[in-house]
């Protein structure tokens, strides 16, 4: 016994490690287990009655109810439009350049004064002839949104991106300039 203790002390001195005993005494109340059992039963009974009488649950019945994501959530892309429903994009190619996934393809075009009923030639000289976002390549990093000088391309809060075919996942200009209220 005495030798053992000495050895322990020596080991402590050498290794400078102390053994901490974390075990605790288990009393009769815990050993019998019935007390904890009844405690647990009352917790579940409380929840049962809460569900049964008050109908409370944490479930969101998805197709009918939708989760309200944060304002900073980055979902389906859209291009903002001004009060005349003309897209804000001026085809500056900044988003296409900054995009790490190379999913944006823009073909630019001059915004002719003659064709344009709203005479935007002065403020917006260029416009996109086609603006395609490949949602299958996109990594939703939001860098296009930050790069855009006109706040044209934005990511909405719409998270329902499922499509039937690959072609549908190529968002064209018509799809991108859809009406988005708030941030979707």
């Amino acid at each position, binding site marked *: 016994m005495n030798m053992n203790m000495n050895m322990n002390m020596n080991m402590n001195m050498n290794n400078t490690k102390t053994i901490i005993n974390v075990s605790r005494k288990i009393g009769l109340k815990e050993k019998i287990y019935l007390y904890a*059992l009844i405690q*647990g*039963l009352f*917790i*579940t*009974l409380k*929840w*049962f009655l*809460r*569900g*049964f009488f008050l109908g*409370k*649950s*944490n*479930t969101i*019945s998805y197709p009918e109810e939708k989760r309200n994501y944060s304002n900073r959530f980055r979902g389906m892309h859209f291009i903002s439009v001004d009060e005349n429903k003309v897209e804000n994009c001026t085809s500056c190619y900044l988003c296409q350049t900054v995009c790490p996934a190379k999913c944006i393809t823009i073909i630019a075009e001059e915004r002719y004064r003659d064709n344009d009923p709203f005479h935007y030639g002065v403020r917006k000289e260029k416009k996109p002839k086609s603006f395609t976002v490949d949602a299958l390549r996109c990594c939703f990093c939001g860098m296009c949104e930050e790069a855009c000088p006109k706040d044209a391309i934005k990511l909405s809060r719409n998270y329902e991106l499922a499509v039937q075919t690959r072609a549908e996942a190529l968002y064209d200009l018509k799809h991108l300039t859809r009406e988005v209220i708030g941030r979707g």
Partner: protein
Amino acid sequence: MIEIASTIAKIIFIFFLCLSSLPLCVWFERRGSAWIQGRKGPNRVGPFGLIQPVADAIKFFFKESFIPTNADKVLYLLAPLLALAAPVAAMISIPFGSYLLFENLGGNDQYKIPLQIVQSDSGILFVLAFAGLEIYPLILAGRASNNKYSILGALRGCSQLISYEIAMGLSILSMVVIYSTFEMNAMISYQQNHLWGVFINPIGALIFWVAGFAETNRLPFDLAEGDSEIVAGYHLEYGAMKFALFFMSEYVAMMMVSAFLVTLFFGGYALLPGMNFCIQYFSATQNTIAIFQFLSLFLKVAFFMFIFIWVRWTLPRFRFDQLMHLGWNILFPLSIINLLLMIVLGYLI
């Protein structure tokens, strides 16, 4: 003639009562678990999702019924049948009311129909025999389906049932000592005249109740089908309606054990307090009393079914060595001591 007809009527009544309350039990199990866990549960099919079990049954019927290639076909098909048959058969000697009284039937002025399918002097042994049969479907299913997990589940279920059956038998024996009869009607009349068994022998009731969980393979003792360890245990290779039979047998076994527990310890069909007043309100004929007796048994069994479900969604599964420790080191000595106590008490009364 009338005797045979009444027996058949009683068999049909009990059988259909068991089977028709199954969907409700399954619904309550799923809905109740959802409430306990803060979910919603099945709520699409019918009002409050009540038709969901019917939809499930239809699905089970139309699924492909298949047999594994190397399975023992006869035993494989026999196991689910036996699983449902054993607990239903055990129900037949549990009385669900005293007797109905008919006048001018079969040439007699008064004809008594006892509300118990088999009036046997050794009713308890009958129930125990059929409850003991519940091991066989486990072993057969595990052995026949030629699967490692199945045989493991069968072994676990088997050893578990044996270790609990002893404690259960001893707790029943302690009640037999008190009632000094094997007949269930006599036990119930004793409890009507004196006290409910649970007040005389609370430890015995607790042991029987715990053993009942093991007997029906319910959580916390569902080692035979411990999902996280052995996939689904003994019924792993079963699909479609054959699986549904195992599923149904679990609930019928729960009803059987609840009814047995109620008969032994909670007065059986003895009227619940307050029911005497109701009978006075209607009319105190024998038939009204019998209906209320059936109702009180039904309510008591329903209460214990609720406890079965409530406990299942509260307690986690026991480890195998913990289960064996509980069975052999705690319940077995406790039940022997309790039996000795009850023998002494039996002399004193």
